[in-house]
């Protein structure tokens, strides 16, 4: 199969999954006890007003009409209106997205920068103190609930030693870019340090599980690769050990690691939701939690769709990358 055909096939699968996601999210409303009109109205409201609201929300239409209304707006970026604020859901989700993306990307960077060298060191110094240290770290890392880790970091580093702020996001990357573009360089630099200062604890909180996971994967992948005959053959032909380890073994290790990272992006978003709750980080997670507490279904539905569709798209991207770096996939 050629690379382009592989990508087309993968994208079609992705489209199907996206359709499924939207349908599931649409169905979510029907499993909730009580109907949405109750959210807006006091229980003892005049039946006429009630009927009016229901009509306005389109809840008295036949199911297929409701479904069509729901699904047909999505390609145009319409996710309906919030029951509470009556503003478009899409705009609210969009406004919250940068904060979550920032957090997720920062955590991924933390994880990759720490985990890959750690995994390599661990594998190449097997049964030495560094290896034991890395093994214990990764074991505890994948077993620690990140919200608790966040609370611990706050207690120790923010409360006791006052090194970091406990919460909030006074400025985002978008704000910094804006300052930069408008020419106030000094303020942009200030903004950047403030941003870094505020995002450190949330990023570490969210990134620890991934650091641990990727360390584990890198270590076992590296051990596996270093035991392969081609590594021995590379040494037999006199290649420098650095080249054997990094050009040959590490690259082959990273190919499957990339896929796993892709598969785990969902966990990353899930982790972001709860990390946001710990640090009062104003992102999608906070939006989701608030929408549940306020029973604001359209906002919940819109956020879920954005998260799931984003996840599917990223996975297609990861697969494409995988096919690109691993020629066997495309040719098989």
């Amino acid at each position, binding site marked *: 199969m050629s690379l382009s055909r592989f990508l087309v096939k993968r994208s079609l699968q992705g489209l199907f999954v996206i359709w499924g996601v939207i349908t599931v999210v649409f169905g979510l*409303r029907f499993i909730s006890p009580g109907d949405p009109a109750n959210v807006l109205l006091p229980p003892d409201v005049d039946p006429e007003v009630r009927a009016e609201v229901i009509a306005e929300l389109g809840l008295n239409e036949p199911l297929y009409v409701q479904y069509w209304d729901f699904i047909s707006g999505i390609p145009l970026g319409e996710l309906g209106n919030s029951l509470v604020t009556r503003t478009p859901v899409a705009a609210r989700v969009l406004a919250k997205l940068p904060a979550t993306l920032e957090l997720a990307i920062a955590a991924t960077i933390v994880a990759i920068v720490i985990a890959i060298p750690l995994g390599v060191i661990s594998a190449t110094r097997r049964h030495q103190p560094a290896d034991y240290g890395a093994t214990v770290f990764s074991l505890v890392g994948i077993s620690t609930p990140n919200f608790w880790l966040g609370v611990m970091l706050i207690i120790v580093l923010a409360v006791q030693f006052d090194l970091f702020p406990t919460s909030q996001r006074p400025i985002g990357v978008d704000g910094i870019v804006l300052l930069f573009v408008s020419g106030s360089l000094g303020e942009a630099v200030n903004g950047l340090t403030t941003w870094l200062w505020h995002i450190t604890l949330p990023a570490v909180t969210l990134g620890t599980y991934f650091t641990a996971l990727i360390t584990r994967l890198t270590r076992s992948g590296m051990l596996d690769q270093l035991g392969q005959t081609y590594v021995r053959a590379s040494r037999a032909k006199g290649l420098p050990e650095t080249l054997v380890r990094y050009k040959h073994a590490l690259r082959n290790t990273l190919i499957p690691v990339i896929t796993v990272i892709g598969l785990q992006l969902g966990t990353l978003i899930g982790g972001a939701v709860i990390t946001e709750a710990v640090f009062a980080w104003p992102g999608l997670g906070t939006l989701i939690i608030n929408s549940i507490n306020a029973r604001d279904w359209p906002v919940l539905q819109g956020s879920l769709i954005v998260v799931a569709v984003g996840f599917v798209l990223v996975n297609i991207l990861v697969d494409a990358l995988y096919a690109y770096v691993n020629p066997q996939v495309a040719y098989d």
Partner: protein
Amino acid sequence: MISERTLRNLRRELRRSLLAKIGIVVVVFILLMAVFAPFISPYSPGKQNLDEARLPPVGFSTAETREVTKMENGSVVIEGGEVVTEERTVYTNATAAHPLGTDGNGRDILSRVIYGARTSILVGIFGTSLAALIGVLVGLTAGYYRGRVDDVLMRSADIMLAFPSLVLAIALVGVWGQAQAPIPDPFVVTGLAPAFRSALGFTTGMPDTVVLPGTVIVVVALVNWVWFARVARGEALSIREEEYVKAARALGASDGWTVLRHVLPNAITPILVLATIQVAAIILLESALSFLGFSGADVSWGFDIALGRQYQSTAWWISTIPGLAIVITVVGLNLVGDWLRDALDPGIEGEGGV
């Protein structure tokens, strides 16, 4: 189902792995703690005592500056008609009566940790069993029938996987609300635990029900069945090609019988390994839901961490200790999972011979 060889591998791996031993000890310890909570818990987890709020754990004491009424020679000092106050450092010492301290409402943290284990274990075991049941049914059906059936089932699994499990769980619990089923605690209802406690002079008044967080169990299963489906499907796909399975079918064995008799027993090992890891994952998920206040549980490690947050600058232990309980439990389960995986599937970590 579990062959002699498998048992031998398990024993051998256990003998040479210190970590596996640690894992088993931890898991057994936590299980015993959860089961025998009404015997060993010092107090009822809900028993408040506001006079003893925020006592630190043994080995720690806290110093706090408080404004107190100024006293001289045993009487209140009054100047200009006002009671005079002064700043004074107040020390709070740990007491042996509450070895892990008390929370903001003066409840004993050790008791809450012991009872919290019940919530985690109940959700972990029931949630995993339900997920395994759904997943294995779907997976075996898909792998055994292949074709259309397989396509439909596995595509729905893909759709489930597109939702981050925590987000989906939050949404489902949020939408459904929190149904909880109080079931009678057998030890308390039969009078066994109270008799034991009064014989030893322990405090009595243990709760006589165990709260089964129904919605949470269903939701974690709905979120996690997919992993079981994948494993079961893979096994079914390969086992149905085995000669003896083909032979059984050729002899007219029904599909259900073939699956039960031949396919399932062979799939048991990987499912068991997965289940161990899933218990850990589900315990983490439950604690996250409780932390966010969505599970409705009022005795749960995650919930207690959230309760402690308002004291994070004065009483660190309220959040810290339940979290440690989670970490220890999950580490133990992961170690047991690693042990099973290494023993039952030695091909996973290649050693590369000559």
